[in-house]
């Protein structure tokens, strides 16, 4: 079991974490699924699969395709809705004893606000991650909503969504941003101005893959989100860019597979980091990273993990 180590503690909004290692939304279920394989209470925090107001059945299969050092997914936010979450998933999460951050998704601002309001009253929620960046909501097969923009791709929409959530809750708000934009810093600034306490960088990069035998897309919904080691250099740059121009805590993620990957994200300005795809391959990788962060601090004679943040020397 990973020992409590003060030198690793960090704060995101009002949330105190004993270490900066989190698990990313959609890659760790609701905690229970991996309880057999990892000591859950050793984690810094857990971010749950994105939930929506009502149930969603998700996208057509195949929903997964593996690509070079990464994977595409088009799950489509399958979930049972917020009430089922509070009733069936939250009691287990609450008992773990670490901060529980609930990811919420919606296609309109009113629903975002309703979700925040509902969770604000629920016992055991430490914070809300507002997923304004899921690439899998539009139906690319019928091209019906092909032009649909993500909230996170328009600074005014992003501002409005977060402003609405802010008005509905006093819980810590983390906004999850898409990297599929020209300038991610202006979106980060907009959500900060709207009252977001932190940003999660990054959600998946939109991508596709084709089966050359059938000339059909590898994913049922044609396009999906790319994650895993393939995106790490790009995700790292997104973190570095935001760190340099907006004063807001960053939760860095995108392809973290090793302790070194995590350290890179912290050096580039992340306050905390999250593992996504890595959980599927090595469900207990986050624990190894927590331990190694401790060694790294010690062997580099740093006072604490905060001294590492943004320490890139150029």
């Amino acid at each position, binding site marked *: 079991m990973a020992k409590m180590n003060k030198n690793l503690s960090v704060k995101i909004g009002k949330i105190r974490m004993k270490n900066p290692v989190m698990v990313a939304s959609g890659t760790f279920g609701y905690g229970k699924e991996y309880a057999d394989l990892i000591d859950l209470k050793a984690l810094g925090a857990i971010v749950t*699969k994105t939930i929506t107001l009502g149930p969603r059945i998700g996208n057509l299969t195949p929903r997964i395709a593996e690509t070079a*050092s990464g994977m595409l997914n088009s799950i489509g936010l399958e979930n049972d809705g917020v009430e089922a979450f509070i009733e069936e998933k939250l009691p287990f999460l609450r008992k773990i004893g670490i901060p529980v951050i609930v990811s919420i998704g919606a296609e309109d601002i009113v629903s975002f606000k309703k979700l925040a309001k509902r969770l604000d009253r629920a016992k055991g929620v430490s914070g809300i991650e507002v997923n304004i960046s899921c690439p899998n909501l539009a139906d690319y097969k019928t091209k019906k909503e092909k032009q649909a923009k993500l909230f996170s791709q328009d600074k005014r929409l992003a501002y409005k969504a977060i402003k609405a959530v802010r008005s509905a809750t006093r819980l810590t708000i983390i906004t999850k941003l898409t990297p599929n934009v020209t300038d991610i810093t202006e979106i980060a600034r907009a959500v900060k101005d709207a009252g977001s306490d932190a940003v999660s960088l990054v959600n998946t990069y939109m991508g596709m893959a084709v089966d050359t035998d059938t000339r059909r897309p590898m994913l049922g919904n044609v396009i999906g989100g790319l994650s895993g080691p393939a995106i790490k250099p790009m995700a790292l740059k997104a973190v570095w860019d935001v760190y340099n121009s907006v004063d807001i805590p960053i939760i860095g993620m995108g392809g973290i597979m090793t302790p070194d990957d995590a350290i890179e994200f912290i050096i580039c300005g992340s306050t905390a980091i999250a593992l996504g795809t890595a959980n599927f391959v090595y469900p207990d990788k986050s624990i190894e990273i927590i331990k190694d962060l401790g060694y790294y601090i010690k062997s580099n004679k740093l006072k604490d993990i905060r001294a590492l943040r943004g320490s890139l020397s150029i």
Partner: protein
Amino acid sequence: MNRTRAKILSNERIMPDRFVMRLDAPSIAKSAKPGQFIMVKCNGGTEPLLRRPLSLHRIEKKRLSLLYQVVGGGTRILSKRKRREELDIIGPLGNGFNIDKSARLINILIGGGIGVAPLLALAEELKIRRLKTMVLIGAKTRSHLVGVEQFKALGIEVRIATEDGSKGYKGFATDLLKDEAIIGAYEPAMIYACGPKDMLMAAAGIARINSIECQVSFEERMACGTGVCLGCAVNTVKGIKMACKDGPVFNAEDIIWQK
């Protein structure tokens, strides 16, 4: 469910593109059931990145066997792994077959191609329980047939269908199911099917027409194998289910079949 580094006891080529791997994995073997599977990390790197799902071909007290076909990068790497090396696996996963203990039933196992893999473990379990069992195996040609000898060694009746007629009946394994002799003679029966989706669909159709219970083992693309990523969705009359967690074995009548 647990994760372990299992020692590879053997990794034998049984056909040009098919292998049987035996693993020393007591922590998984002790609670494993026929029809369940494991997630295998074929190598230590990120190419391929994800684990690969493979059915339990045989379950012994401390050992597991896998029967796999080389179809791409992951299985190719697996085929090169050597005896005494360690393989990083997670399991047992999934629900497994639902064995009806009634001695009245004839259990009809039907496997197409590599779909025979989980049926040997099932046949062995049925044998231990002294339940009536027969196996229908389908393959492209006689040289693609797998498992025939192992089933026969259990004293189980095996019927064969090959697409080119080079051995047994010329056609599909599901054609054998249609055979009045099989269904008519042994009713009531329980069908267990594993193989390509078209085969499962055909088996389900025959089962429905003849009012026979039928369990089908599904293959969908999986990333995690543990019910987390929600990748391996199966459309059922009871809503969307995950092949890795709610399956891979489903009641055929619950499936909403899609082409």
